[in-house]
C-alpha cells in the first residue's frame, strides 16, 4: 500500500477516468498537503439526544426497538456558522467536500491535531471508490463545549493506493450509503446477520 503524496494527489486531481480523485468544492489548493488532504466541516448534523428509552436497540425483533434515527435530531448550519459540541456529545455530520475516491484508493480520516487537542476525536476509514461526503462521527471528549465553524478545516485524510480495483458503485449488491451528501443515522439494525443471530438465540 502506498501513501499518496502531494505530487500524486495533484496528478490524480487533474486526470479523468479510473485514477481520478475528485474533491468538490476544493476551496484552497493549500488543502493538499505533503501526505494529507485537509477537509472541512459540513453543514448538516444529526445530534444525539436523550430519550425516555433505556438504550438504542439494534435488534428489530426486540419489542423495545425504535428506529435509530429517532435518537438523533436534525439541524443545519450555513457556511460560516458555528456548531457547538458539548462534552460527551455525539454528533454525526459529513465533510463539506463531496469526494470521489479512485477505485484503487482508500482513505483514513482523522481530526487535525488542532482539534484533537480540544478533545474532538475521529478516526474512520473510507472504502476505495467511495462516492459522497465523508461521514463523520464527532465526539467531544473534553470537559468543555467546543465551537466548531462550518467550513473550517477540521479533518485530514490520508489516501492509500493499492494493487486492487473496487467496484464500489458498480457492485451488484445495494450499497447502504451511496452518494450521501448529509449524515445518516446508523443502519446497524439493517444488518441481515442480526436476523440469523436472533433465530440462533431463539433455538438455544
Amino acid at each position, binding site marked *: 500500500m502506498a501513501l499518496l503524496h502531494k505530487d500524486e494527489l495533484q496528478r490524480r486531481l487533474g486526470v479523468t477516468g479510473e485514477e481520478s480523485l475528485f474533491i468538490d*468544492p476544493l476551496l484552497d489548493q493549500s488543502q493538499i498537503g505533503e501526505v494529507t488532504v485537509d477537509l472541512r466541516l459540513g453543514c448538516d448534523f444529526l445530534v444525539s439526544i436523550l430519550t425516555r428509552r433505556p438504550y438504542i436497540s439494534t435488534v428489530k425483533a426486540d419489542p423495545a426497538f425504535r428506529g435509530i434515527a429517532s435518537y438523533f435530531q436534525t439541524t443545519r448550519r450555513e457556511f460560516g456558522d458555528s456548531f457547538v459540541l458539548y462534552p460527551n456529545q455525539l454528533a454525526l455530520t459529513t465533510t463539506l467536500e463531496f469526494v470521489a475516491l479512485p477505485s484503487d484508493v482508500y482513505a483514513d480520516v482523522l481530526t487535525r491535531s488542532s482539534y484533537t487537542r480540544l478533545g474532538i476525536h475521529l478516526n474512520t476509514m473510507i472504502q476505495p471508490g467511495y462516492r459522497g461526503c465523508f461521514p463523520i462521527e464527532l465526539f467531544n471528549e473534553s470537559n468543555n463545549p467546543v465551537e466548531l465553524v462550518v467550513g473550517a478545516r477540521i479533518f485530514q485524510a490520508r489516501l492509500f493506493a493499492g494493487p486492487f480495483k473496487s467496484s464500489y458503485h458498480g457492485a*451488484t449488491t445495494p450499497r447502504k450509503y451511496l*452518494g450521501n451528501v448529509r449524515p445518516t443515522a446508523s443502519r446497524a439494525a439493517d444488518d441481515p446477520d442480526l436476523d440469523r443471530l436472533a433465530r440462533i438465540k431463539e433455538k438455544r
Partner: protein
Amino acid sequence: MRPRLDLFLIRDSLRDCQETTYFSGKLHKFTAQLLDVIEYVLQNEKSLSEDIVRAFASHALGANRYLTGSTTKESPYEIEYCLQSVVPKWSKRDCYITTALTDGRDFHFEPTDPWAFVKTALPGFDTNGFDPLLVQLGVPRVYSHKPLYCIPLYHELGHFVDVSNGVTNLSVLIQAPNSTPEYRHRMEHFADLFAASYIGRCSIRALEIIAPGNQSSATHPATADRVKLVDDFLADRQTGLIPLFQTCLQHLKLPPLQREFDPAPVKTAFDDIRTYPIATTRELHGIFGSAWNYFEDSLDNRSPPWVASAPTDADIERIINDLTEKSIRNASIRERWNSGATP
C-alpha cells in the same frame, strides 16, 4: 384583540426570535428594526390614527408569523440560493427569504412588506432607508432535500413578480380578458412562462405527468394549453399571450421573458456519482432541467452504470436529488468563499 395588546405580544415574540442563535444576520437586523417601530408606535399611539395602529399591528403580526414560523435549523438553503439569485432582476428592493416547512403539499412564495407601510403611514419613524421585502418560502417538509421536486417554486416566484409589479393587471388594461377565469388563467400562464424562462421545460413536466388531461377550470388553464404556451415560448414562437406579456414588461421597465439558463451537462458527472461543478448562474438554473431529464431517463431506462447498486426507484431518486442539491450547495459555497476574500 386590541392592536396595542397585540403589539405587546408580537414584541415579546420577536425578542424571543432574536435570542435564537440560528438567525441570520440579515433577519436579526430586520427583527431589530421592526422592534424599534413597534416601540415607536406604542410610545406614540395617542397621536396616531387608530386605523394606522390597527393596520400596523396586522403587518407586525404577519412579519412575526414569517419569522417565528421559519425553520432556520432545517432551511433548504439550496433552493433559497437559487431563488435569491433571480429576485434582483425583478425587484428593485432587497429581498430576505425565510422558509417554512409545511406539512401539506403546498408551495408558496409570499412577501410581506411592513416598510412600505411604515414609510408612508408612520413618517415620524426614520427607517434610515431600510426597506427589504420579507419573503416566506413554503416548502413541503418531505421535499426539503428534493430540489427537483421544488421546481414549482419558480412558478410561485413568477406569481410574486406578477403581483408585485402588476404585470397581469396591466395586460387587462391593454387587452381586456373576456371573463374572470381568463384573467386568472393569464396569471397562471405568466407564472408558467416565468418559470420556463429560468428552468426550461421541466417547469411544465410535472403537470404533464400528474395532470395530463386537466381541462380548463375557473382558476387554471387546461394542461394542454399551458404546455403548448411554454413550448412555444421555449421555441421562440411569439404566440398567444407571449407578446402581450412582453409589452407589459416593457411598459413596466422590466426585462423581457427570455431564456435565463444554460443546460448543465450533468450526465458524465452523475453517471460517476459525482457532483457537477456549476460554473455560472445560468447553469445554476439550467441544472434543474438537466437533472430532471437525467432523472426521467434513469427511471425509464435504468441507464446509469450505478443502477445495480441502487435497485429501487426511491434509491435512484434520492441519489439524483442529492447530487443536484450538493451541486447547488457547492456553487453557493464557492460564491461565499470568494466573497469572504476581502473585508
